[in-house]
């Protein structure tokens, strides 16, 4: 398995609270991605990073922000969590050379009450 970890693996929080999810890689890959997975929607790209301090929006970026201060860490922040952000969040990495084969982390299950 690619060296990708996500923390926490499970989290329950209340509406309006800030939440930060962490993705950590040991592969030194350039690209990192955050997806959310919901029934009936498959995986949807939230944000991605193509280098330290270089990030861009994906398909469903509203309500989310990201930061990448080191190659190995990519943080996803929900500034004020809402129930619609209840989901399973996956981090992925790719080396960005040619077609982007992605390697996925184990996921974080977030419940917003």
């Amino acid at each position, binding site marked *: 398995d690619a060296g990708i970890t996500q923390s926490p693996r499970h989290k329950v929080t209340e509406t309006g609270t800030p939440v930060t999810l962490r993705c950590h890689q040991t592969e030194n890959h350039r690209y990192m*991605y955050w997806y959310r997975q919901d029934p009936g929607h498959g995986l*949807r790209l939230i944000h991605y990073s193509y280098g330290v301090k270089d990030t861009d929006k994906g398909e469903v970026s509203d309500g989310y922000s990201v930061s990448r201060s080191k190659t190995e860490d990519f943080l996803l922040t929900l500034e004020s969590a809402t129930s619609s952000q209840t989901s399973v969040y996956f981090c992925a990495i790719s080396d960005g050379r040619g*077609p*982007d*084969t992605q390697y996925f*982390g184990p*996921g974080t299950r977030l419940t917003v009450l």
Partner: protein
Amino acid sequence: SQQGEEDPQALSIQEGENATMNCSYKTSINNLQWYRQNSGRGLVHLILIRSNEREKHSGRLRVTLDTSKKSSSLLITASRAADTASYFCLLQGGSEKLVFGKGTKLTVNP
């Protein structure tokens, strides 16, 4: 906007049978990938096919791509119970960087 539509949404077969699932898309792509997801786990890359390729094989997997019809198919031959999983196509190219299909849930009965 780009969308990936997979069919069928669910497929149930017996061990030893072949499983075929399809992915259709709307706008041109540079490449298409297939991923597998076991229940509660992250996705695992299976195979990639570029837009200038028509067919690729990897073990029991066969992928075809028809760019004129904007569709791809994934064939799993001689299926096993361990193939039970959800399968997703990932579209790359055009103005939207990465788009996943909604997936096909495959159940292989022993």
